[in-house]
């Protein structure tokens, strides 16, 4: 089987599948010639006429962008695709609430993003308690809330162990005032090579972003064996953590009931109740007092499983 990768050859989740496809005899091309099936991400750049599998990552919502017309392109692809792959149940809910309700085909699947369980290697134990978080930090990614939770946790940590825990923040920060503290380290946008040692030695990952459909930050943390903490309001991250016994989903925030793009920019939507902060801090304390060694990585977040499931979707279209 040969797959035409329409607009996604550089996408990290697709890149992670390529070696597994190769081992299964699935080849790929960036042109439709001699291909059997097309994979497009989010929208279709080239309507080749091949059976089309469309992977959706949610909808556009950036107010600085013309999100209405961008969503119209997604809507067109969504309605014409022969099969749609959603990244999570949350992703499916969001897309179906906003995109054209009528679809040409009833074929729909949920396949989570995957990563290689060995991506960050082994060894190198950090003697300091270390918390990681990663995102392209916009309001709904909740950097302020992440720092607030960490600060409350660190008060306990310092009183008990007489030293500070460290928060490593990865990713670009947009419109955020960064606190100048020794134990909160802003690394900015970095590549995986740089992140490896931090994930290898992290005690936990804190992910509080509210609209991610299937955040790679969480997939990477789980596949690195890092206990990840999120809340029920955090969309795909909550699904990923709920399926992973050594991760935690705080139920002190509720599942989002609407997906209005404007809501992501409103403080009321993003602000965290104090009882949620306390619950998260309790879980972080437990992670330090009773550290859990992950035994198995859930299949759903492994890149080999992801590649297998995509192959099954392609075969269904042939």
């Amino acid at each position: 089987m040969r797959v035409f990768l329409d607009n996604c050859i550089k996408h990290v989740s697709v890149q992670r599948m390529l070696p597994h496809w190769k081992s299964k005899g699935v080849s790929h091309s960036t042109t439709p010639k001699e291909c059997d099936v097309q994979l497009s991400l989010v929208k279709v750049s080239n309507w080749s006429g091949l059976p089309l599998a469309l992977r959706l990552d949610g909808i556009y919502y950036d107010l600085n962008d013309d999100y209405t017309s961008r969503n119209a392109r997604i809507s067109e692809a969504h309605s014409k695709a022969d099969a749609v792959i959603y990244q999570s149940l949350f992703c499916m809910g969001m897309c179906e609430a906003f995109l054209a309700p009528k679809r040409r085909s009833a074929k729909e699947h949920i396949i989570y993003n995957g990563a290689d369980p060995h991506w960050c290697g082994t060894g190198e134990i950090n003697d300091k308690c270390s918390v990681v978080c990663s995102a392209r930090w916009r309001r709904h990614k909740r950097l302020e809330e992440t720092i607030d939770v960490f600060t409350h946790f660190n008060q306990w940590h310092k009183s008990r162990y007489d030293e500070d825990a460290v928060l490593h923040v990865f990713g670009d920060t947009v419109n955020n005032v960064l606190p100048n503290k020794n134990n909160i380290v802003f690394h900015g946008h970095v590549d995986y090579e740089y992140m490896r040692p931090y994930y290898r030695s992290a005690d936990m990952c804190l992910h509080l972003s509210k609209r991610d459909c299937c955040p790679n930050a969480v997939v990477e943390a789980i596949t690195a064996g890092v206990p990840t903490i999120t809340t029920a309001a955090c969309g795909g991250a909550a699904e990923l953590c709920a399926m992973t016994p050594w991760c935690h989903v705080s139920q002190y925030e509720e599942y989002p009931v609407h997906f209005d793009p404007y809501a992501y920019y409103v403080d009321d939507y993003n602000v965290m109740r104090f009882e949620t902060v306390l619950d998260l801090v309790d879980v972080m304390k437990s992670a330090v007092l009773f550290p859990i060694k992950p035994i198995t990585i859930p299949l759903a977040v492994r890149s080999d499983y992801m590649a297998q499931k995509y192959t099954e979707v392609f075969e269904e279209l042939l």
Partner: protein
Amino acid sequence: MRFILYFDQLYRHWAPVLLGSIRLYEPNAKVTCFCYNMDKSQIAEVVDAGADIVYQSHIEPLNGEEVRFHIISRKASMILQVLQETDDGLYVMMDVDMLLLRPLTVLKEVMWHFDMGAVTAHREKFCGGFYAFRCTTMSIAFLTQWEMFLTTGKLYWDKDQPSMASIANKLIREEDFRVLSLPRTFLDHKSLAHSFVWSAHKSELGSKAERFNIYSSMLEKMKSDARAAV
């Protein structure tokens, strides 16, 4: 995949409508029905509508309690019994006054990674009416604890939803219980375009009789749409 339905003679007329929608969208699924206080001809109607296993029993409360409270208290027992007697991968328990609106393909895919799926109302309560289970060690452990709560001593007819959440939250925290929170839009009382299940539990569409008529005509429309698509 197997559906588990439960109802008494007062709700039996809803069963053919729900079973019709199950046959339409999940034609390969099997259905177990627990029928309470129904006679032979009424049971025969349920079998004709497409149920492949039917259990029947009679409930005669002594203290003037309503039959429905006794039925609700048996929810966990019913699921446990079916999990232990059949081998169908995924089990879905639904209230009978519901309608399946589309295939459950994605639920089947996602549930493979979880022990239980339910719509969460809030931290202390699951929405009743729709639960999905896989037959795993943890789901059996959960159902056993829930059954003990519901069937021991006092009749906990109004505590099935909070007790479910409380036991599940304890097992999530202390054991390896994996629970999928289904979106609130999954189960809807207004039949949203992207809902999977339409539930008659709220009165916005009129009286229960009016809702039944709407459901029946909706099923006919879904059937004719399906025929047109073919």
